[in-house]
């Protein structure tokens, strides 16, 4: 009697421990800006297209399933929390012919610096621009100087200089296209790209 129980127990254990194919789930999420892209899941000869928020493909299901935000948060919460901060960018503007910020940008600067400070070890790319007033080479220098000035602000709040790259694009990449010798405040700018 005991032997039968042992054999039954072993049989059950073998059954429960049998190797099984991994179960896989793929879920599309709505992005921060509300845009929904598409994920195409190719499994052997079958192809599933996921293009709705929380649409899910499972390896043991033929049909696309619809999950809820709560289900996703429960299963993937810690993974989603580990996503790095999204790359972002800021723009500050300058007084004509100088590397001095406009009063408006000066007022905004503290908020920008506060946002940058929140990121652990940010990578920052600082790109200076000018409008088309003045000589091409002079504007190259001015744009580089603007970028260096902004880099100075970033170093002051503790971002390591080695993590900041600067470039001056002169009048070559205007935000607003203008004829030569045009005073255009929106082109006198520095772009701060951070990730």
């Amino acid at each position, binding site marked *: 009697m005991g032997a039968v129980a042992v054999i039954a127990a072993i049989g059950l254990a073998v059954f429960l421990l049998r190797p099984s*194919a*991994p*179960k*896989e*789930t*793929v*879920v*599309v*999420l*709505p*992005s921060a800006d509300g*845009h*929904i*892209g*598409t*994920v*195409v*899941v*190719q*499994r*052997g000869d079958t192809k599933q297209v*996921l293009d709705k928020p929380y649409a899910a*493909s499972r*390896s043991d299901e033929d049909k696309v399933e619809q999950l809820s935000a709560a289900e*996703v948060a429960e*299963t*993937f919460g*810690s*993974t*989603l*929390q*580990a*996503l*790095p*901060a*999204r*790359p972002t960018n800021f723009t500050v503007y300058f007084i004509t012919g100088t590397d001095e910020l406009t009063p408006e940008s000066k007022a905004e600067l503290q908020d920008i610096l506060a946002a940058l400070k929140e990121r*652990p*070890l940010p*990578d920052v790319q600082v790109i200076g621009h000018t409008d088309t007033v003045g000589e091409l080479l002079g504007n190259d220098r001015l744009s580089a100087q603007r970028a260096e000035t902004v880099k100075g602000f970033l170093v002051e709040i503790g971002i390591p200089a080695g993590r900041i790259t600067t470039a001056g694009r002169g009048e070559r990449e205007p935000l607003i296209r203008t004829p030569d010798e045009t005073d255009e405040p929106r082109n006198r700018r520095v772009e701060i790209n951070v*990730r």
Partner: protein
Amino acid sequence: MRWTLAAVLLAFSTLAAANDVGEIKVAKGDAYLERGKERLAVKVGMPVQQSDKVVTGADGTVGITFSDNSLLSIGPGSTLAIDRYVFDSTTHAGQFDSTLSKGTLAVISGKMVKQSPDAMRVHTPSAIMGVRGTEFIVKVDR
């Protein structure tokens, strides 16, 4: 055909091995990077290279930002291999293949997918995911 391609890719990956393609931005709990025969404890600020494998323990999570602004994170008990990563910052052309062999992965695609919809693929033991500009998550239960 497949093996020819694999051989070409292998040759590429050997050439590009010295390049950093991303950086660890988030590291919590038990996690390490396998690079060749080395096993490196994961730290914020550590560069990630093509052919690296990222492994987390029962309490580990890791977040990585790549040079094209793709963002990836893995949850506890996960293994993710960066099989191939190439990105041209001028043209935004590139190719990004990774394999999640177990655990959970979250993906936010970056500039190369905007440029070319087929640039990014995520592999699992049973499937290949093609990514068309989106955010998604993957789970492989072993």
